């Protein structure tokens, strides 16, 4: 933090901070503490009796193959969503930057899915791929691919990845386009004089200039695919089939609310929070704090 001019007042800053601190304490710190407490307890569904069980919930978790599998699922899911959304965003941004004129019209058409709730994105894709009446499922069937996300874990995972990435492409596109438009013309012209072909020119000279944006978008998209995609999963596959689409954040909900295993769910919350806080800390220390939505 830079040293700068400031006001002197003994109590005012505390009053100013109070609303945010209160909300943070009541709706963040207290629940987080409660999660810690519940994670070492075993409770019945109704909360009528609870007992202290030490770390049993955590041991149960890491003995549960399906929970460990969920880490793998989350990883595959996040990497796929991030890759597709970034590659798509970059491709469209490069094309829009290239044609200059009319890129604004394309921009409006491409960016709107960002305004669509993940749960709605899920519902849209779920509808198009409904094995009985979905337009795309029927088209696939016509060309001989038997689409079935109710049974085929791969199909199901593909479905939620597509729905999640579809919503995110326009967002990445905007950032890349802004980055490209900030590249000085002199750089591009210098490269053109060297006689490099446009595509090679892009990869060799322009793309490296975008690396800060790329890196920032990787973080952002990863966070998105880790947490914000709950709605996509819940509104479509509900984690199935055989938990093929049960990502970590869905599992917290499923264990806590559907399976009514409060201890297990709290233990998962603690694991996730630890992971995220560690990552945030690393980011804060080494990469400079950035903001995300």
């Amino acid at each position, binding site marked *: 933090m830079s040293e*700068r*001019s*400031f*006001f*002197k*007042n*003994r109590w*005012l*800053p*505390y009053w*100013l901070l109070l609303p*945010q601190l209160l909300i*943070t304490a*009541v*709706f*963040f*710190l*207290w*629940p*987080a503490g409660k*999660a810690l407490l*519940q994670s070492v307890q075993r409770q019945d569904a109704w909360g009528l009796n609870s007992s202290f069980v030490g770390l049993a919930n955590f041991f149960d978790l890491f003995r549960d193959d399906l929970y460990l599998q969920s880490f793998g699922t989350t990883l595959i899911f996040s990497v796929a969503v991030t890759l597709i959304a970034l590659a*798509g965003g970059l491709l*469209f941004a490069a*094309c829009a930057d290239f044609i200059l004129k009319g890129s604004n019209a*394309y921009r409006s058409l*491409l960016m*709107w899915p*960002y*305004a*669509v*709730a*993940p*749960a*709605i994105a899920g519902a849209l*894709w779920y*509808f198009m791929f409904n094995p009985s009446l979905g337009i795309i499922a*029927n088209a696939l069937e016509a060309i001989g691919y038997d689409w079935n996300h109710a049974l085929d874990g791969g199909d199901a995972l593909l479905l939620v990845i597509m729905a999640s990435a579809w919503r995110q492409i326009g967002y990445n596109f*905007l950032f890349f386009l*802004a980055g490209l438009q900030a590249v000085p013309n002199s750089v591009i*012209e210098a490269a053109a004089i060297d006689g490099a072909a446009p595509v090679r020119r892009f990869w060799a000279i322009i793309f490296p200039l975008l690396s800060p944006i790329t890196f920032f978008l990787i973080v952002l998209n990863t966070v998105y695919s880790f*947490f*914000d995609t*709950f*709605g996509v999963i819940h*509104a479509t596959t509900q984690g199935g089939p055989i938990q093929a689409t049960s990502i970590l*954040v869905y599992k*917290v909900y499923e264990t806590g*609310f559907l399976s009514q295993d409060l201890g297990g*769910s*709290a233990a998962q*919350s603690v694991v996730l*929070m630890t992971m*995220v*806080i560690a*990552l*945030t800390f690393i980011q*804060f220390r080494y990469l400079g704090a950035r*903001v*995300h939505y």
Partner: protein
Amino acid sequence: MVERTPLLRFLAHLILIVGVVITLFPLWVAFVASTHPIENLISGPFPLLPGNQLVENYSKVLFQGGSSFGRIPATTMMLNSLIMAVGITVGKLVVSFLAAFAIVYFRFPGRNIFFFLIFITLMLPVEVRIVPTYDVVSNVFGPFQALLEATRIDRLLEAVAGIEVDLEWRLLNTYMGLILPIIASATATFLFRQFFQTVPDELVDAARIDGAGPMQFMTRILLPLSRTNIAALSVILFIFGWNQYLWPLLVAQENRLLTVVVGIQRYVNAADSLPVWHEAMALTVLAMLPPVIVVLLLQRLFLKALIDTDK
């Protein structure tokens, strides 16, 4: 000069058009489905052109509510979503602005600790701690009551003053319950902090020489300076609020509080009966409209919020 051969230009356009088609296709399918009677969707090839039931389907969903549940009209759900979105937007802006102001323009004991406490919330959405948050919202005063009981202060009060303390503040099934926990993340605080740091020091000094206090500086100088930022941030926060899903799914247990995004899930998952896809898709289109319109109309602000504040 950079060459732009017609062939390459054509290719670029082609790729973009494909992109636009992929982007718009789901929306088109939803819109088409929402204009047909259900029979057209269930049997035979899926129609690619709108049907003749647009008015019927939409008026039914909007004003009577779907046949799936409780006949909650979409107007009610949209209103709930609006209240939630606006509440989250305004709440976050006010709380964050004040907190960021305190952190940037004051030096006081505990500043770093407070900042760290607020910062921790940055990357942890409510989904991660969903079960305990639900418990807390069922009685926000739970911690205080526990504290009183643990310290026996409640007995003392009862004995000395005859006041029976039973603190309860239930937020389930209230708009407050929908809004407050979502405000508990520091994204906006962070943004304001970054913005305030770009405000020239001279302004502060000038204000001080004029004898203006911190609050006057905040209202007269800082607030007008932040106008565009606040407007841009509002766009983002509105969309963020409108699209909330898991939290309203759990907290709004009564029909009168149902939000539109949760409503769609209710339409699609029905036990022992067919989903009413045409109505579900009409509701989907309705639920998409407000945030999409906000983004398209306020593009400039939206872009500014995304690009500027993130750099």
